[in-house]
């Protein structure tokens, strides 16, 4: 195992990218550091930066190499990384707390009973724990706007299923490795389909096409399968948000 003192690590990614990594495994503190670092970069972009993004524990910074020497950017980022203890910095103050209606009802959540059985719990106890879990948007990826949410308590940890579910609908909540993903578009998955929302993480025509940002908090508001169906014309799927405390 790599000692934590190796991090943050800064390395070129291709000619025009620099990757700043805060850990080499999923760790909420490193995720928080990556989100805080990216937020600080966006608030005060070093010269020549064209784009930044955050993954589970790292930040990509891109430049245009015709105007910026990527090695100068690398040095500027090295100084920015050193200036602050990003692991202790905390999440950006602009982040939101979302309340998203979700049905944990076997009608729309076909693998919730299987997950409960594998964890040796009742469906009702598992639902209660999922509703109580404070979840954070760890990163956005796989599909446009699609959030990876974590982390569920350690005793709810299950690996991916060995089979691929051929298709889950848009808005599906799928779960594995202490994370929940809210599917942007219908598609196959190796994670278990345990809940359903009417929320659309990608709204191409909206002023904010990606409603969720890395660092946002998410809580589920338990509703019936009937209510989820009735929310399907609302791209927000009945979700509300407020500044995160």
């Amino acid at each position: 195992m790599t000692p934590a003192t190796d991090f943050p690590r800064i390395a070129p990614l291709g000619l025009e990218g620099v990757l700043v990594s805060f850990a080499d495994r999923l760790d909420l503190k490193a995720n928080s550091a990556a989100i805080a670092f990216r937020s600080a970069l966006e608030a005060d972009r070093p010269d020549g930066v064209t784009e930044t993004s955050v993954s589970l524990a790292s930040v990509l910074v891109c430049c245009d190499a015709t105007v910026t020497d990527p090695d100068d950017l690398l040095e500027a980022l090295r100084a920015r990384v050193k200036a602050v203890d990003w692991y202790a910095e905390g999440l950006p103050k602009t982040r939101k707390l979302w309340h998203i209606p979700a049905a944990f009802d076997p009608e729309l959540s076909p693998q919730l009973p299987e997950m409960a059985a594998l964890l040796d719990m009742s469906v009702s106890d598992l639902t209660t724990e999922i509703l109580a879990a404070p979840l954070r948007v760890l990163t956005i990826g796989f599909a446009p706007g699609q959030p990876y949410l974590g982390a569920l308590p350690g005793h709810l940890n299950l690996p991916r299923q060995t089979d691929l579910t051929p298709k889950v609908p848009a808005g599906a909540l799928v779960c594995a490795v202490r994370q929940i993903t809210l599917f942007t578009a219908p598609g196959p998955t190796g994670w278990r389909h345990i809940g359903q929302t009417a929320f659309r993480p990608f709204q191409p025509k909206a002023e904010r096409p990606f409603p969720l940002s890395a660092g946002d908090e998410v809580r589920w508001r338990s509703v019936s399968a009937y209510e989820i169906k009735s929310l399907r014309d609302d791209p927000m799927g009945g979700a509300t948000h407020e500044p995160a405390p």
Partner: protein
Amino acid sequence: MTAHLTLTKAGPGATLQDRGRPSQLAGGVSRGGAVDPLALLEGALLLGQDTDAAAIELATTPITLRTGQHPAIIALSGAPMRTDLAWNATHFLPPETELTLQPGRDGIYSYLHIAGGFRTDLVLGSRSIHLKAGIGQPLQAEDRLPYDPKTNATADLVLNTNRPDQNAPIRILSSVQTALFAKEERVRFEATRFTPDPRSTRSALRLSHDTKGFEANGQLDILSEATLPGDIQITGDGTAYVLMPDCQTTGGYPRIAAVIPTDMPRLVQTPPGKPLTFRFVSREEALTLHRTEMARRKTLPKQIGPRLRDPRDIPDLLSYQLISGITAGREEP
């Protein structure tokens, strides 16, 4: 005023592309856009228009299209296709005219540009179809593509593209996980003759080779992190894939190297079966090459001139097959 080009036939692999969507990585959308951005630029320069205008991209796929009641000026760029129209040139299409383009042998990605650019709806500031991200659909028969028929573009211009040596090794840079590959593996990577696999897509170019797969040491379970087009990923079975514009924004496979931007257009146009090799270069060299190439692209308009089209000026007219729309010459099957 809006005119339309109507597709009467379109094979799989026909899409509309512009320069794509920079600055959407944080939303989980890779840049996308034309696989060969140099060919996209060449077509726009031939028509003297915005370099972000949308064009039809054809990945070794045939297309037949028709003008309606308005004429159109088009440009053809990228991989030459079989047609009796000259490639890397602009052409006047009268109203109610049908044009068929058939895949050629040289290259993969061909572009049909129209003066004024295609005016489909913008999604996140771009008209690029990005199938992986669920943005848009492939072009198909009966699609009507809107354009503005008013134009200042000129027909019968030709561009001297002056593409570099097609057989030189593709130059690569060390990347974030290059050090996870033993020196012998990196040397073997440079010594290997690859060829593009026909299963390649706009997301990934798969590389075939006869020798055993490539292997990283130790840490095979890499925490998912940002990926960019040009990255060369080694998957679990040792296969190398070069990420393409529609790639996912993150990935967990080790990357042995990254193709330098200068050599991407040549790489993506390499047809299956043609040998490919890779050679590591320093960052300094890659940067100099990139800046030289981007400066050269600014001089491309000087390479545009009138095309001789009077039949009396064509010395080998008899070698042209004028009736079926197939040109004799090196594109002939």
